[in-house]
């Protein structure tokens, strides 16, 4: 064995060991945390509570799944919750005016798809930085929502709530929708050439281009998907709370969606992340809020604690990724 091989080997052994330690530590910490909750607040594990966490996180989870696509391709989409809110408001407005569910659903999806395509074009064809492009869409959507709703709450048709917001057997419609999205998106991302191309673009866009991957087209498709997810989330959310208003997307939601993706293992730099991770991220975020409410902590403190936890998780993950790389 020459010295070169020796050092490579030594380096590898070192990084693997470090990686394993990190994984082990995180699993132990996680289990300890869950056990601690079981002792302190057993009601957290009540079926009804868990099921309500699932239902509450479904909209964020669906949006985070769309966000994952954009982030894996190396971009970021700030506009998802705003697009969701705008399409929800316009959908509710359409339904109120026409008394027709189909038209309402159509309006929701049309708006979401259009804005998704707009984001895609701005980024892929014109070459605007994704952060800026989607921020513009976000501001635009927020403004337009205000105009449409005039700061009031627009109720949706009862039939719409019944269709998309009730229980089918033991499952809430939102959960079914979330699971279907999860399965389809996870499949597309990990099993198809399309998905592989997205990872390729996020890892090294120039190489992807030189390999003959149509980077522009795929980036548009990626933003289209995140738009569609915003539309689906709008349907789920408006049906659950049976009205549309500006409160659909509070200022925190936009960050919740990105946080869910990052907590779930995606990277701002692109190239990594899975849809499953985004869903787990969404559950962690909502579970945490739920838990803190159980402890009787007020909203503002919850935000502070949430921030601290995210910092911890992302630091941990970054350190781990660096250790793996060496």
């Amino acid at each position, binding site marked *: 064995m020459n*010295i*070169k091989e020796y*050092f*490579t080997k030594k*380096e*590898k052994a070192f990084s693997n060991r470090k990686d394993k330690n990190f994984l082990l530590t995180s699993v132990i910490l996680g289990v300890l945390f869950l056990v601690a909750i079981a002792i302190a607040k057993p009601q957290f594990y009540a079926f009804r509570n868990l099921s309500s966490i699932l239902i509450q996180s479904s909209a964020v989870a669906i949006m985070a799944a769309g966000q994952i696509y954009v982030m894996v391709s190396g971009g970021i989409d700030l506009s998802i919750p705003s697009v969701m809110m705008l399409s929800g408001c316009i959908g509710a407005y359409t339904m109120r005016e026409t008394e027709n569910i189909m038209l309402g659903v159509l309006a929701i999806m049309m708006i979401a798809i259009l804005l998704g395509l707009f984001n895609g074009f701005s980024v892929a064809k014109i070459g605007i930085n994704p952060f800026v492009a989607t921020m513009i869409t976000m501001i635009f959507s927020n403004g337009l929502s205000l105009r449409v709703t005039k700061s009031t709450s627009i109720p949706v048709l009862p039939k719409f709530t019944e269709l998309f917001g009730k229980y089918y057997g033991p499952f809430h419609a939102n959960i079914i929708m979330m699971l279907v999205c999860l399965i389809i998106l996870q*499949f597309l991302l990990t*099993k*198809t*050439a399309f998905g*592989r*191309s997205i*990872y*390729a673009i996020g*890892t*090294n866009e*120039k*190489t*992807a*281009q*030189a*390999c*003959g*991957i*149509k980077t522009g087209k795929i980036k548009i498709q990626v933003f289209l998907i995140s738009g569609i997810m915003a539309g689906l989330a709008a349907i789920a959310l408006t049906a659950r709370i049976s009205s549309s208003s500006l409160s659909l997307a509070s200022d925190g939601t936009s960050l919740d969606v990105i946080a869910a993706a990052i907590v779930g293992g995606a990277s701002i730099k692109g*190239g990594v992340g899975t849809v499953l991770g985004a869903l787990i991220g969404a559950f962690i975020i909502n579970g945490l809020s739920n838990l803190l409410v159980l402890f009787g902590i007020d909203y503002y403190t919850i935000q502070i604690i949430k921030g601290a936890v995210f910092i911890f998780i992302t630091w941990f993950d970054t350190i781990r990724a660096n250790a793996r*790389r*060496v």
Partner: protein
Amino acid sequence: MEKRMYFEARNLHKYYPGVHALNNVTIVADKGEVLGIIGINGAGKSTFMNALAGEICIDKGTYYIDGKETIIRNQNDSGKCRIALIHQEAVVFKDMTVAENIFIYNLNKYTKAGRIQYKRLFEDASKYLSMIGADIDPKEIVKNITIGEKQMIEIARALVRDAEIVLFDEPTSSLSLDEKENLFRIIGELKQKNKIVMYITHFIDEIMRICDRTVVMRDGCVTGEFLNEDVTTKELVTGIAGQEVETIVNATDKRDKEIVLKVENLNCYPVVRNVNFAVKKGEILGLWGLLGSGRTEIVRNILALDKPDSGIVYKRNNKGILEKISGHKLLEECAYVTEDRHLDGLFMQMPIWKNISMANLKKFEHFIMDEQKERDYALQMINEMQIKASDENVLVETLSGRNQQKVVMARSIGKNPDIFFIDEPTRGVDINAKSFIHKKIVELAECGCAIVMISSELEENLNLCDRVLIVRNGEIVAEVAKKDISKQKLMDLCQGIREEVKYE
């Protein structure tokens, strides 16, 4: 006790993932000496320079400057040791004036009440410029001056900082002949001023001409040290190569083969101007020019990776007829090996198997990606290209340079196209891998592939190409047939010393 030299670097080590870039390197130099450091790409000479300049930090080893142990961890330390590096491509701020660039480290000395005193700045700048005999207006914006003049800025900058050790990293690679002569004169003057000059290059004739002593590096080690007066060119060559290496020569005759690719009137102002050429089946066509001559841009424009202003590309279709083809389509059908594998050649954080199948995803997609097939295929290519890796899951970033380059080649070959565009096929790989890659290229040509090759290495053009097109300022200025290819001729043509008949 032996006499201490002014500068000593002892037992330096530097590790990169999978590479021992500097292996126990000891290099010493004394004042008033021009030290040549020579070696092939990837021998570790640039790593050594970058370490001295503080751009990277060595893992082990000591520097002694003026007899004192010194630590160089970053550019600041390096500046304090009065070391200045003249980069291969000058590091300049292209929207600032020449004078501002020269005094970029000392601008605060020219500042009074928060304002830069331009009059004094310009005066001093012309003083330094005339010191090195450079005729540049200090008020000029840097983006308007030539590459050679940018280099003068860096040299002036080194003088301003009163550098004792001046490092030159392949300074002549993009200079015209006059500029080169001027540079040699300046190096001579630096020597007279009792400075240490370290000169990296892979041109032996330059070493023989200006250096007093030469250090040969190979695979991260110092493998030889010669006083220039008692060494012959031949000895240096053997020292650099390390061993007798099989030289691959492409010898087949392709005179009556049909044309498979034809480029007409390709323009992308100002980097590509009116480019016309054709490639025959089984032919290796070289594009030769200096760095920045537009050779890479020609290929990128053909493949529509850059947007050409005008130009038509024809490709021979199945029926044997030349047919107009769009750049995107051509990119799908041909193989493109890029110039810089770090920039746009590889997915560093992906395993080998994903890298190899990436140009060819559709072939492996049967409703879902057939990962098993991809892996089997990657293993097959790993064998065929003799890539040294334990299995197909190894991340590409942990491979050594030559194996990375082989992965890039494997991806292109695996596509099984009939046209290859290969930009710098052997950049930064050692001599054995080089010969292996050359063999592959000749094999491809023998199988009837048309190959457009860009290479900075003269030998590669001499040994492999059936024809060489000379590129200067984005234009194809001459064509040299195989029988006429010679070192001197290629050098002269690309610098515009000799004019040749234009290619029709």
